[in-house]
């Protein structure tokens, strides 16, 4: 039997609140292979970030646990690097220094000074940030900040890369570029990735599996969709691909038919409009 890489084992999470315990997650159970790219999708507030934080070790599960390569996860650590939604760079350090902080902490004793410098530059190069290495976060755009955040996470050489809506705050075009970069990096390095997203196209384009969560409270995994599309994937070709559109439809159906809550019609319409905007972007990139 093949030993499992990452096992999210029957995780239940309760938060203490003034009115008693609030059960956010109920029995979330998922096994992820090495090098697999998994997306978590679900309505706002269902508990996606909570799952990620439990894997990161920032939260302790009330019941169940997370096992990574045979060891139980009890505390945060650089083997499970997190890319936060709002980039979380230290504003008083340059891009280079932000990555340096992580590299020195993780490899401080194992690498020489020259090797550290080279490793920092290599990771910034991976995310195409060579030209603005020595700028501070307030001097670069949102997309660039997110790139640096990814470089910082990659530079830790994590076993698992955890991303909480990494591109949520970006405009559609920048997001498309970032998705390309992420696909490249994943193809090169083969990291295990768990990514939270609200964007159906993003999930289908990037993932090996899409984990769809039910609505909270006591959210759990509703369905898991395996995406059998050949890599490398090209968003322009995908737009006309029948399989791609089928997967996309499945996810939309889960989100807006099976998991739709009363009074959510307006939101659903908005989401639909957003999706059509995405399509326009695809056309725009093709034209360019």
């Amino acid at each position: 039997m093949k030993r499992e890489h990452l096992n999210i084992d029957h995780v239940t999470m309760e938060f203490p609140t003034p009115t008693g315990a609030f059960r956010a997650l109920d029995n979330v159970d998922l096994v992820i292979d090495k090098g697999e790219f998994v997306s978590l999708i679900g309505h706002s507030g269902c508990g996606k970030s909570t799952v990620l934080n439990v894997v990161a070790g920032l939260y302790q599960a009330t019941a169940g646990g997370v096992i990574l390569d045979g060891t139980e996860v009890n505390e945060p650590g650089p083997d499970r690097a997190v890319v936060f939604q709002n980039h979380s760079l230290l504003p008083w350090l340059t891009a280079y220094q932000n990555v340096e902080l992580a590299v020195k902490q993780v490899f401080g004793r194992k690498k020489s000074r020259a090797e550290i410098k080279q490793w920092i530059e290599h990771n910034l190069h991976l995310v195409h940030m060579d030209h603005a290495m020595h700028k501070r976060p307030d001097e670069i755009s949102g997309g660039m900040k997110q790139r640096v955040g990814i470089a910082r996470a990659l530079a830790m050489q994590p076993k698992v890369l955890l991303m909480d809506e990494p591109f949520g705050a970006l405009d559609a075009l920048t997001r498309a570029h970032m998705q390309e970069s992420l696909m490249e990096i994943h193809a090169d390095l083969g990291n295990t990735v768990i990514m939270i997203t609200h964007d159906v196209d993003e999930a289908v384009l990037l993932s090996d599996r899409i984990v769809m969560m039910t609505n909270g409270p006591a959210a759990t995994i509703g369905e898991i969709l395996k995406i059998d599309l050949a890599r490398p994937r090209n968003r322009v070709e995908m737009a006309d691909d029948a399989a791609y559109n089928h997967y996309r439809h499945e996810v939309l159906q889960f989100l807006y038919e099976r998991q739709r809550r009363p009074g959510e019609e307006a939101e659903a319409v908005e989401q639909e409009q957003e999706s059509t905007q995405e399509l326009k972007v695809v056309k725009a990139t093709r034209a360019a």
Partner: protein
Amino acid sequence: MMLSRDKIFSTEDYTAFISSFVLPMVAIAIFLGLWSASAKQVQTSLGQLPGPSAVFQQASNLVDEHFAEREKEAAFYQRQEKRNAAKLAKDPNAKVKIRPYTGKPTFFDQIVTSLVTVFTGFVLASLIAIPVGIITGLSNNLYKAINPVVQLLKPVSPLAWLPIVTMVVSAVYVTDDPMFEKSYLNSAITVMLCCMWPTLINTAVGVSSVDKDLINVSKVLRLGWFTKVYKIVLPSAFPMIFTGLRLSVSIGWMVLIAAEMLAQNPGLGKFVWDEFQNGSSNSLGRIMVAVIAIGFTGFLLDRGMLMLQRRVSWDKTAVLR
């Protein structure tokens, strides 16, 4: 080719000039006018309340007195040196005494004394308040434990501290060869006790409100306590710490003047008190010069802190005022 006038002085230049120079000047002129008009209406036991011109007169008197005193001092040392040289010429083994000049400190000497004292008290206060603030800010329980004590001690007036400080200093600080004057220690410690709190509270609040995501970053990286404080907590609490420091300097300066008046410790406060007791026809004018000097020095101290903050702040774009 003709250069039009408004190429050299654009409209924006004019507005900037008016708002940054002309407007304050107009305000000062109005203030001086009101002062001079109302001063004429008030008769005190020391004569008419001095207007701007009388105060200006006293200010230049104080400057003259300062230089006269300095000349006297120089002359004193010259005479002493001559005497000693003559003594030594007669008998090379003679013991010569060098006595220090003991003239009355001038207005400007008092300003310097006050500045040195406030600086001492402020530095002592910061050396205590910043570390304590960091430690309390990092621990919720410690914050809850210390907060009531701080809230209780914070509003205590300098006038209440002073007798206690005086008694403690004279009980504890007993040496034959004192390095510092007791009065200097009394004032500095009173300043310290009163101006410590804004820095402590602001540091604690700044430290405890560090962005949760940044704390998570430090957890994921498994930064040690010291690295976390040095790399993440301090820089992000920096603006709050400086806000506290600026409040502390202003409070320290106000407290010092009061303490000097009450305890007759050398400094600007003593100058004001002495003039008040003196009660000559010039006294009110001289006190007003002191009041203006106190205000102006306080302003300069605040500006100085602001410049320091701009200097060392990582965020050069922040608007500081």
